[in-house]
């Protein structure tokens, strides 16, 4: 059972890693003027909800399967994701708003955020991998 949980987490985590990388690539494309703000933001906003859901699922799964440490590790990031999604002002077009992304260094902070998430997900990846192997061996 335990192994199933971690296999699922691992797959989900891989998806999140890919998503982070995608965010970084798209944002740096914007930085380099390869795409315009409008298309960049509409691309990214599409993936904000999947990201929130994907991460929330893992977190909840850890809670259910009583892996407290991993749960607590994931909790702040999941909370931040949800908070960020909820706090989007009503007039904005999503977490990434094309009219604001070039102002006040938002692009940089989005970039930073994506980087940090990537690091976090990589960390999680190895943890899940380790736990999964451990679980498989135990089984």
């Amino acid at each position, binding site marked *: 059972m335990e192994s199933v949980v971690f296999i699922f987490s691992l797959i989900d985590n891989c998806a999140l890693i890919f998503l982070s990388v995608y965010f970084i690539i798209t944002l740096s494309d914007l930085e380099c*003027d390869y795409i*315009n*703000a409008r298309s960049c933001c509409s691309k990214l906003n599409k993936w904000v909800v999947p990201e929130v859901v994907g991460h929330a699922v893992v977190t909840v799964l850890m809670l259910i399967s009583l892996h407290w440490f991993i749960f607590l590790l994931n909790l702040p990031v999941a909370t931040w994701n949800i908070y960020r999604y909820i706090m989007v*002002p*009503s*007039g904005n077009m999503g977490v990434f708003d*094309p*009219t604001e992304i*070039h*102002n006040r260094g938002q692009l940089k902070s989005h970039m930073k955020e994506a980087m940090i998430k990537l690091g976090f997900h990589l960390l999680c990846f190895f943890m899940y991998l380790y736990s999964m192997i451990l679980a498989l061996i135990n089984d």
Partner: protein
Amino acid sequence: MGGWDFTLDSHTIPLLQPKKGAAPRYQNGPVQSQMQFPSGYGSHPPNYSAPSGHYSQVPNKAAASSHLDNQYRASYYPTYYSAPAQNVMTPSVGSSVLNTQESQQFYNKTPPHTVGSAEGPIQGAISPVSYLHTSAQQSYSAFGNHYSTSVSSSVTSQGFPLNSDRYTMPVVSSALYPNVSYPAAAGGVYGQAFTSQSLPAVGQFKETTTFSSQSTSVPHSLQQHVPMGYNSTLSTIPSAQSTQDNLSRHLTGSAAKVNNQINTGGVDSPQPMHSVSQTIPFTKPGAGTPASSAVVSSVRTPAPSLSSQPRSSPSVTQSPESALQEGMQYGGYVNNQASSAPAPLSSSSDDEEEDEEDEEAAIDSSSTTSSASPVLNNYDALEGGGYPETRSVTSSPVPAPSVPQTSKASKPFGYGYPTLQPGYQNAAPPAPVQPSNPGHHPGFQHYPQQYPGVNQLSSSLGGLSLQHSQQPESLRPVNLTQDRNILPVSSVPAPVPNLNSDLRKLNCSPDSFRCTLTNIPQTQALLNKAKLPLGLLLHPFRDLTQLPVITSSTIVRCRSCRTYINPFVSFIDQRRWKCNLCYRVNDVPEEFMYNPLTRSYGEPHKRPEVQNSTVEFIASSDYMLRPPQPAVYLFVLDVSHNAVEAGYLTILCQSLLENLDKLPGDSRTRIGFITFDSTVQFYNLQEGLSQPQMLIVSDIDDIFLPTPDSLLVNLHESKELIKDLLNALPNMFTNTRETHSALGPALQAAFKLMSPTGGRISVFQTQLPSLGAGLLHSREDPNQRSSTKVVQHLGPATDFYKKLALDCSGQQTAVDLFLLSSQYSDLASLACMSKYSAGCIYYYPSFHRSHNPAQAEKLQKDLKRYLTRKIGFEAVMRIRCTKGLSIHTFHGNFFVRSTDLLSLANVNPDAGFAVQMSIEESLTDTSLVCFQTALLYTSSKGERRIRVHTLCLPVVSSLADVYAGADVQAVVCLLANMAVDRSVSSSLADARDALVNAVVDSLAAYMSTASNLQQSVLVAPNSLRLFPLYILALLKQKAFRTGTSTRLDDRVYAMCQMKSQPLVHLMKMIHPNLYRIDKLIDESTIHVNDRVVPQPPLQKLSAEKLTREGAFLMDCGSAFYIWIGKNCDNNFIKDVLGYPDYASVPQKMTQLPEGDAPSSERTRSFISWLRDSRPLSPVLQVIKDENPGKTEFFQHLIEDRTEAAFSYYEFLLNIQQQISTYVGRIRSFQLLTLP
């Protein structure tokens, strides 16, 4: 709480060394140490000063010439040349040979010349005489000829006797000398110290031509002699490289100066050294041929007026008529170039000329004078004297910058921030040479490479000198709590960047381009210490009375950063220029070598692009993604019951009918109309119909265009139908009972209609949209209007309008919103459609055609301006700045498409922009930074044009200098923009706190730097003395005030205006001007176009100034109020207002009668003068004490206390208290951190 962190992430990146592009390539001559020169110098100063007196007195007339000439020769010439004699030894050959070959190639193409070089002197002497009056060039050319020969001979024969001979001949020219000659001479003498061979000649020609022909010839002739003696030294100087830059910079700058001098009274002055430096002529195309010059002259007769236009020195405005032509004329010249490019060149004498010029080129300008020299003062006085004149001509609200008084004191040029000169002070030869030469500044940035140690030393010395020896006026401490009269007499001038005077004259006008700090701090750390925001305020598409328009197949730009060539680039040699933003060295294209203005070849630095910081290029097809679009106008009109009731349709249709022919556009102009209530109505105006057809689409959920082809029609082909429609429209819906408004669907339809072409959508809306997509709900709680706590709903309620705006922007369509509503209409949401599509927003609260005549009149006037003003389509704007600075936030109406590219579907002359910057890399290796905005747009005539503005500012390293250069108006406007963002993204309270903190932080930081100040008093540098007042005014502005009942739409509209108004208008909005007008006197008047305009002094915005005996005019930018005191003189009321006494003045009075009495005339001329200075003509309201408009008027008296807000004095005390705690905190912090 919420102060701004003006910084974003700052990176510390190792200093960049400027690229060493200009290698010592030119040092091919024998190396001669600079130290040798001084020997020659010793003798000069006397000469130098002597002639100056002499010449300056000479009237500027040709008639006076001959005896002058003698004198000139006697005193001036010999002395010069004697000095150099020592140095004249080895004729330099290397480079000159090269050039000759080149020149030959060029010249060979040209028709043969009539005059041989040998004859040059004689002919030259003659021809100038005869043609003197016809053209500047002639005499010039004659000189060229003359000199070319003389040079060659002088080289061989040591030349002094020869020279003097030669000089006898230019009799004519001598008349001219009074103007400029002096400087040239000086330069020549001193110049040898820093020579570079291939100095590009500078744009003098163009400039000079503006003036009478006499003046033009002068500079040239001067230059020419100078070099002769020096031939040998030219090529030899070791420091060539750095100086080259220097030189070329000067070059660009000097021309302007020459002008100026002439302008201000034809006086010459020490400055001329610049002119010298630049003047080093290169090949003069026309020069060789006196004979041909006659021909040329006839062609050129218009020249003076023409060429004068391009020169746009910031302070000088020209007569409008001449200005108007400029564009075309430039174009003409340019075209000439294409057809007749090489023509003027002469073949026979050229070789020698070339040689000569090369050598001359080597002479450089870095001439010097001792700073104590009386001449300098003289100059300053002159210049200072010159300004008032120019001021009277310009009627712009921001008066031309005046020379700071302090500059007279010791340093001739600016108040000499020491850091600008140090390189020279130490590197250059001894005493006489040393004193700062303005010419040094521009090149200065290169010095650090060569003399880093010296530089540091001297800059630190300089710092000392700044603080102790002299304190600029802008740093004078002002005790705010005691000094109550801080307002200037007339409007607040923009500070003048502390550049040397020729750069200053080339610099962009502060009306178009202003920086919050005219002295840029060297590092982000320094900027953080100053606690002032760094940013630019732009008004790029401003209506200009003079603008050089350049037609050229190649537009010269930097190859790496794409910067347009501008006056602040440096020419390394004739063939290469160094970008002033990224420091890349670029080639000068062949085409650029020809100067269409002077028709001369090989003078790239004299081209208009390099002589004007504001230019417009006609762009080639490279700058088009598609063929230039036609002007397309679509009107989307609300015709619901509410709208019909308000009656705006009548006014709109009337205005449109009147201005139909004045709509900017060409034969392709198209126009269309859509009306909407709960359905959307289209109008088929296809040519051939007998009358307009209305097509109603009631399916607003899925809007479609009934006949896509015939809704937007050609204005000229369907004019009759359009007129019919406009006449019918106001009455078509009179009986409508439809109260709903389907704005969203109408906009979607408009977008569909416009997307194939792009253009302008003008939306007239009178209520909250209530149907279909984009419907809104009322969010305002009237009980919260005067809440002091939270103001909500400043942001949009839906992203519909934003998305629509972005779609429109993508299709090059701008949406302009006219909101004429009596109740809440959620402007915060609606405004998005204009904000992001680069449109503009007009708001007329409680508009009603008959009940509110003031608003009706305002709408009428606004519409007139709106319909007829210039417009640019499918525009993009890019702002570039010197490497090391980066722009991180933009304010204004546009969409930021990529990091630095602003997409402006339309651009109009009333739009202002602001940007915030940070310093990402230290600027220690440069002394100047430049900013360039390039606005690429399609004119209404279907031309693709690029308007380029370039601003150049000095870099400083001390905090005091940063404060000295603070531009308080720009700072306040930028802060207002930031505060708007803050209120929307965070909260209003937060924004208000941040505004107060901005004052507290900056003043505290200033007070902590000035250690000798008592901490108990509130002191501000003179440059920032108005800062607290303006911030208080901002806090009491509709946008940011709390506690006073403010409707949400009013507030949001004020915020929109802050974001999109240019600085001049915004400042009036923030801090209105108050004048007392019942005692206008003829003293202190200015004359504008034959009208006498009185200039009453500015009054404090306080009720204490409003005496009952007086009448006052308040200028709020968008409105004028005339307040009449109860006991106001009945004569005034009778004469000016046309009523017998106070009691009979009506409540709603919006116009002054045309009385004959002098007081009436004066008042009206004053008001119309104020009106002329702004695009939207403001509405005038006469206010009596019991008038309902009274509250409106008294709200603007921002120095007074209201129930909800501090008076100015209380505000100061509050700030002082905060500062003392702040400083206390810093102190204790320092104590803690100290070991």
